[in-house]
């Protein structure tokens, strides 16, 4: 609820912010017809499009975005502006035209990381009344402005992400036709030609510094974009000789696709019904030479209607330009070899009836979607190619090929980001890495951190375990169990570990620990199984299993077997635990012999062998004066000795009980590991 309120406030502020920035009235600069914006989708999103533009309007908005499009697209837009003015656009983009070209030149100019686009936009105003300065009516004339654009964009996939750069060369023309030049000579009314250059950049910061702190899942839907329109400035010739240059327009912004599933808690079941439903947000800022800034904000709902194989795309935009707000709607129907899109938008106007426009687009060629890139990745022989395509698969998040891509990248060139990558797709490797992290934290005695990691790890394991057919191998199930034990979920751990058909010593030790945490006497059996699987390279586990076994036996008041177990442990040659011993329980040092001897002493007292018990505790003090239980014994030995001398066995029993409780409190997995 709180989060939702925050989002609402942020959006409200954003909208309020854009409205408060009033236009300061510097309209009327040359080239306005190249700044208003083509495409119904862009207008529907309040013209916040510099970081989206993944359609045929990219030629106009940001040529680098052509490479974001999945298919070649031919798009046409028509808008009846005000008073018989017409504004139209036709664009064609051909991304990754010759994917298989082998000639290096062809590959460089038309290859799989290149896109071409052409576009035409035209403004025509008809029905001007030609009048002399005496208002003598001479007939009607028209005015037209046209721009022909040619775009080229190239993509580079690097360590930090996917960078795309594009360039648009444009030839521009303005002319007044139908003027009566016999009666009224109008200087400068002839056709005026000019040309200019735009550039655009987009960047998907997959592993970029700063952005790296955000997990890939939340980072991949982000795209940054910028464009400089009229980098080479076109201009209209002035009657007096000079040229009236188009202003240089700087635009930058970002788009973010909120995939609803990713932002809804897993506990909410309807989350899974949302499918790929998403909301695309975009925010742009605009500056142009000698003029004020524009602020643009837009959103698009992307609602798949799976049954009909169509997408419904409601849109809303707000900006600080004349139109202020816009409402649009799109409809997309994809097929395997083509797709049709129809977009509509209506923008308001404070005085006029507003602008209504339609845009009809046809997409063709097979979609260059994630699957396409995945396929290419496996066809390509070079690891560099693979990396590129795998990154492209990532950038199409979410898709069903992510896991393969992540595996590819993590296994080859992108090891530094292995964890980020696996975190994206979840699954075994992700779970393993998290478990490694958890264990690492345990070694550092960061119990809280370890528990959190272990919990994440167990969540990564869980979906596979919960499948009807358990996909986990025995080792993976053991890992899963370990993760659950670290995270404190003993019951789940036991459930998992019990399912292992051929339990290893580790499985049995973990199972014993689990039962111990649940105060279940089946721990005895589990630890017993563990110690019976003695293997030379698993001394730590054996030793710990003996200790666990003994603890379980003592708890079950089976003092004699417990003493046997402890005796075996004390005679075992690997009393010092290795660096990688399982940290549950965590020992303050790497020695468990003092623990075993201390427990032996207690057990002996509990078994009414008071003399032996006190003697063993005295030995603990003598042998391990600096270890934990050596010190503990030191504190109690005088009292125990006095009680023994006085044959005060009740007192000895009481003291032994207290010591046992104290021992349990430190060793019980359920309350000891994560103090």
């Amino acid at each position, binding site marked *: 609820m709180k989060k939702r309120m925050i989002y609402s406030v942020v959006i409200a502020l954003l909208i309020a912010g854009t409205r408060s920035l009033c236009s300061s009235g510097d309209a009327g600069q040359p080239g306005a017809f190249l700044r208003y914006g083509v495409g119904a989708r862009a207008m529907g999103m309040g013209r916040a499009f510099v970081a989206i533009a993944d359609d045929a309007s990219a030629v106009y908005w940001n040529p680098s975005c052509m490479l974001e499009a999945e298919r070649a697209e031919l798009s046409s837009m028509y808008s009846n502006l005000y008073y018989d003015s017409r504004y139209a656009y036709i664009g064609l983009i051909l991304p990754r035209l010759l994917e298989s070209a082998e000639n290096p030149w062809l590959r460089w100019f038309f290859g799989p990381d290149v896109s071409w686009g052409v576009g035409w936009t035209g403004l025509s105003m008809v029905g001007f009344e030609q009048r002399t300065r005496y208002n003598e009516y001479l007939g009607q004339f028209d005015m037209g402005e046209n721009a022909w654009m040619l775009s080229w964009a190239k993509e580079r996939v690097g360590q930090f992400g996917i960078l795309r750069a594009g360039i648009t060369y444009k030839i521009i023309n303005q002319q007044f036709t139908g003027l009566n030049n016999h009666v009224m000579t109008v200087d400068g009314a002839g056709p005026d030609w000019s040309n200019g250059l735009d550039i655009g950049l987009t960047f998907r910061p997959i592993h970029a510094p700063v952005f790296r702190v955000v997990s890939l899942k939340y980072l991949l839907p982000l795209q940054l974009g910028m464009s400089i329109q009229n980098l080479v400035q076109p201009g209209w010739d*002035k009657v007096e000789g000079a040229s009236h240059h188009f202003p240089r327009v700087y635009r930058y912004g970002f788009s973010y696709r909120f995939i609803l599933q990713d932002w809804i808690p897993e506990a909410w079941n309807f989350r899974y019904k949302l499918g790929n439903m998403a909301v695309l947000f975009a925010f742009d800022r605009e500056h142009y030479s000698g003029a004020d800034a524009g602020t643009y904000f837009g959103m698009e709902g992307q609602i798949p209607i799976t049954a009909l194989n169509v997408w419904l795309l409601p849109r809303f935009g707000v900006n600080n330009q004349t139109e202020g707000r816009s409402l649009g709607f799109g409809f997309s129907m994809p097929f395997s070899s083509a797709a049709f899109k129809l977009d509509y938008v209506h923008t308001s106007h404070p005085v*006029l009836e507003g602008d209504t426009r339609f845009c009809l687009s046809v997409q063709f060629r097979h979609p260059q979607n994630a699957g396409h890139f995945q396929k290419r990745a496996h066809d390509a022989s070079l690891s560099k190619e693979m990396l590129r395509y795998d990154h492209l698969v990532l950038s199409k998040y979410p898709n069903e090929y992510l896991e393969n891509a992540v595996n590819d990248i993590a296994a080859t060139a992108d090891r530094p980001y292995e964890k980020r990558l696996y975190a994206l797709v979840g699954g075994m490797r992700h779970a393993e890495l998290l478990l490694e992290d958890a264990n690492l934290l345990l070694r550092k005695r960061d119990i809280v951190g370890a528990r959190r990691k272990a919990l994440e790890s167990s969540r990564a394991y869980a979906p596979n375990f919960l499948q009807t057919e358990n996909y986990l191998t025995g080792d993976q199930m053991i890992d899963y169990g370990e993760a659950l034990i670290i995270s404190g979920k003993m019951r789940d751990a036991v459930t998992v570990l019990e399912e292992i058909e051929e339990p290893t010593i580790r499985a049995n030790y973990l199972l014993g620990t689990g039962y111990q945490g649940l105060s279940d006497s089946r721990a005895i059996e589990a630890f017993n199984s563990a110690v019976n699987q003695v293997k030379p390279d698993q001394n730590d586990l054996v030793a710990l299993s003996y200790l666990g076994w003994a603890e379980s036996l003592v708890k079950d008041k089976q003092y004699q077997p417990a003493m046997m177990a402890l005796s075996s442990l004390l005679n075992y040659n690997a009393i010092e635990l290795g660096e990688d011993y399982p940290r549950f329980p965590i020992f303050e040092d790497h020695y468990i012999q003092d623990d075993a001897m201390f427990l032996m002493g207690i057990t002996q007292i509990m078994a009414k062998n008071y003399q032996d018990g006190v003697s063993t505790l005295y030995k603990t003090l003598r042998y391990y004066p600096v270890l934990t239980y050596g010190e503990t014994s030191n504190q109690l030995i005088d009292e125990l000795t006095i009680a023994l001398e006085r044959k005060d066995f009740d007192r000895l029993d009481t003291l032994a009980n207290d010591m046992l409780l104290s021992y349990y409190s430190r060793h019980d997995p359920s309350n000891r590991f994560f103090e």
Partner: protein
Amino acid sequence: MKNRAIFIGLLFVAVHVFGFSHQNDAKLAWQTPAHIEAVLIELMLEVDPELPVPVLDHEKPFTRGLNNTVTWMDSMDAVYEQLLDMQMTIQFWAVEARIAGIDTVWGFVDGPERSAAFLNLPEGIGIEYRLRYYAIEASGTMHISDWSRAEISVQDASRPEILTFDILQLQNIGDNPWVLGPQIEVHVQAMDTDGQIMQIAIQEIGDEVDRVLFDDLDAHPRTVIDTTLQYTLLTDPNMPLTIKGWVVDVAEFYSDTLEMQFFYMASDPKVVCFPNPFVPYQDHCTVIKIENEEAQEAKIYDPFGNLIRILHKNSLSDMAFKWDGTNEQGHQVASGGYFCIINDDRDLYCKIAVIR
């Protein structure tokens, strides 16, 4: 000389006895002819009521100049017929001009004469003219008729003055004044201190048109005129034309002529802009003409609806806005198409092309 003195003495007696209403300072308007003077010596100074009363021709209320010639031509036929029946002939006429409150001048003219001229009359004063005659029987007996009914006229020797000759709603915005037409309203103010203005003349000079129209002020000449006249222009719309105006007083004096150059445009469409296309390098502004003066605000937009400029009128009565081709920040707008909307009314618009 002695006879002459007697004649004058008799005449004075006659004036007083027979009702000559000449005042004491009455004087002769002109020299009495010698043969009349000779007759007068034997004159019987008695008005004969049997004689028909003469009639002066009608005098115009104002007489041009300081002189006035009174006539008795058209109105005397009946008198002549009667005298013929009575076997009398008119020997001579006595004509007088009574200058109210100032003077009376008079004189005799010979019988066959049908007019008498008074010279150097005072200006701006109503003057009453009267006439009587001396008729003689065959026996030689002289009779004198009663005075005719007075005709009044004022001498007017000065020109009227035209003070104002304006075209209402003339827009002086832009390089050339213009007005909606072809029906225009002309405001005229004029005065004639010593006379009365009789006519207003409007002359239109345009391409292939040269016409003068007179307005007779409904036949009620006035000393001061402040009136508005309807005038329909003959020149084609949007063509330069000149309108001249002057006034004529009843004495047919013409005032000076005032004139102005302008053009008119037809009332439809409601909003027009000229020159169009507008080349700021050549014309310092383009004029957006509107149909009535109620509109207070014009907004210039680019074809995408972006507001370029808000224009206000210089004065409330203007029927046009002026745009110099700049935006709100004072920067020159680019070559291209724009449109102008009046008072946020979508139906009141015009398209403007700017060429730089």
